[in-house]
């Protein structure tokens, strides 16, 4: 089979609509005596119908915690700590009680995790796991739900769906399990899908299959996708807009083409420069970002990137820069951004 890379055509049209999900000032400060880890530190973004927003950043930058907060899936003792708003239609998800939230979760907004085995139930057949939200949320009968489950398996391109529906997760390959996770997440046709590193554990050929599939399902269902990944190449091929996280904050946000063509934040520039690309004549050395991400104890008061930044100016140490517009649809959090 041959298929083009999956960039939906309606990106421009989607941009004009009101956001489906609006995250503002999401914050999670974790006490780690004698320090406080500002794991997520005032994250704001919008997600519109039919679009894919890529949330990219290195490990530890706060991507997964951001996702778990907006899904309201943090467990104690962290569950009591989040601050901020997640506006979904006319409800603030952060203010809902668990009963109302679980009525939305898996129905209007669902999540796919990096490691499907930890989120699939090992002692329940695949078919039952897909049918379960259909019965619970949509009130389908067991028979209707079983039939729909098989249909979902076919939709995510699992060969022999009737047989796989009766199988237990451990019998499936990594790629098949991730398809099953996607089938469960999309069974109720949610408006929003949060996918946290959905292909990171998979080989490239399987990754290509899964990304292709997500793109097709999005075009068919019109869902908005928050695609979390550390892989900028995956973002380049699948997202419409990108938000780059560093040390708990979004440091730059832009339409995908603008971000790759003219990154303004020094960290984004460094990150893009350091990705190895397949070229006829590779550079003898890869550009590096010196140093490493600061830990909770040694994170500077001002801009967290300062110890590694070649453009740092005197103000950078005192105060963290706000995420401000620098061009239409393009925001950057930097006191001395690079030229576009």
């Amino acid at each position: 089979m041959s298929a083009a890379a999956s960039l939906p055509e309606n990106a421009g049209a989607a941009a004009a609509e009101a956001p489906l999900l609006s995250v503002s000032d999401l914050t999670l400060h974790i006490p780690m005596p004698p320090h406080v880890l500002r794991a997520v530190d005032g994250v704001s973004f919008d997600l519109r119908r039919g679009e894919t927003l890529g949330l990219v950043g290195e490990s530890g930058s706060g991507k997964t915690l951001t996702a778990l907060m907006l899904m309201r899936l943090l467990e104690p003792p962290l569950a009591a700590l989040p601050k901020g708003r997640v506006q979904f239609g006319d409800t603030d998800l952060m203010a809902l009680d668990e009963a109302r939230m679980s009525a939305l979760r898996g129905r209007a907004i669902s999540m796919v995790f990096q490691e499907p085995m930890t989120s699939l139930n090992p002692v329940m057949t695949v078919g039952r796991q897909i049918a379960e939200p259909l019965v619970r949320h949509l009130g389908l009968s067991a028979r209707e739900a079983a039939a729909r489950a098989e249909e979902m398996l076919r939709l995510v391109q699992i060969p022999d769906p009737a047989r796989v529906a009766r199988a237990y997760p451990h019998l499936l390959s990594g790629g098949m399990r991730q398809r099953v996770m996607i089938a469960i997440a999309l069974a109720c046709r949610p408006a929003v899908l949060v996918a946290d590193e959905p292909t990171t554990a998979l080989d490239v050929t399987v990754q290509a299959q899964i990304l292709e599939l997500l793109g097709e399902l999005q075009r068919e269902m019109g869902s908005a996708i928050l695609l979390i990944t550390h892989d900028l190449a995956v973002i380049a091929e699948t997202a419409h807009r990108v938000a780059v996280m560093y040390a708990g904050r979004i440091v730059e946000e832009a339409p995908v083409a603008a971000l790759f063509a003219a990154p303004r934040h020094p960290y984004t520039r460094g990150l893009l420069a350091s990705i190895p690309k397949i070229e006829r004549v590779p550079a003898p050395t890869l550009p590096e970002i010196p140093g490493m991400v600061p830990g909770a104890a040694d994170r500077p008061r001002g801009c967290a990137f300062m110890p590694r930044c070649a453009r740092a100016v005197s103000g950078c140490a005192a105060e963290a820069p706000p995420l401000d517009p620098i061009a239409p649809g393009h925001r950057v959090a930097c006191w001395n951004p690079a030229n576009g």
Partner: protein
Amino acid sequence: MAETLLKVSGLEVHFPIRSAFLRRRIGTVRAVDGVDIEVARGETLALVGESGCGKTTTGKAILRLIDPTRGSIRFDGEEIARHGAARLAPFRRRMQIVFQDPFASLNPRMTVGGILAAPFEIHRIGTPADRPERIAALLRTVGLRPEAARRYPHEFSGGQRQRIGIARALALEPELIIGDEPVSALDVSIQAQVINLMKRLQAERGLAYIMISHNLAVVSHVADRVAVMYLGRVVETAPRETLFFGARHPYTQALLSAVPEPVPGLRRTRQVLQGDVPSPARPPTGCHFHLRCPIAQARCAQEAPAQRIIAPGHAVACHLVAP
């Protein structure tokens, strides 16, 4: 090509599958099923392929960390595939490995100094008195401060730990280092640091590398030559540029077309492979790739294709690829 340092031919590594009950042998995993590769002094051969295709097992068999079932491993002209411990000892110094997981591969209860002293102690090199100086020199070589010797692995970040792993591999001044996914667990900005370090060390010391990786973009930056594996066999070997821009094996082509590129809006045609890699416990007959190959013919299911040289340094194992 420079002088050959390593020549592996017909390497096979089979693992028994035992029943849970009574541990009887009920089958065989053909993890490595006839691998031929060569590495010249000072060059980097990359070994690529999807998980489970036998890269790690090939690397461990070359180092004689696991016993080959069949085949030949010649290091610097000497056949070592069946050497016992005593005759292997001098070769253990000359070949080293750097692992993927810098967390699992360093003993958490030893200081970095202790970890780096071990190779000298085991091989009785130098005197206890000159060890601190040797260790300090190693740490400087990989871009760490000598004071690191007093600290424990958990006090370091992933990238720094990988530097420690590299320092340990360098201690005995090997001629060949096998890197088993040495940068796969690192973030891109740190990955670049470690790749640059490994390239610098190679240039300074004339090291040969076998770089095992599933990341083709990384490979394209470090390799002189590339060998592509599928289900225990090498399907294509070529110089770097030929492999990335003139691959001939249908599997290599599919693999390359699946690699995402950091260029938005690049609407290329992608050849998406169907299905999963079959299990090496039940490999397909004939060409191992025939169940997923877009151009397979009847013959492919019956006959395994031999490697054929189609251009200097370029070998392909496919019935339909002719010079």
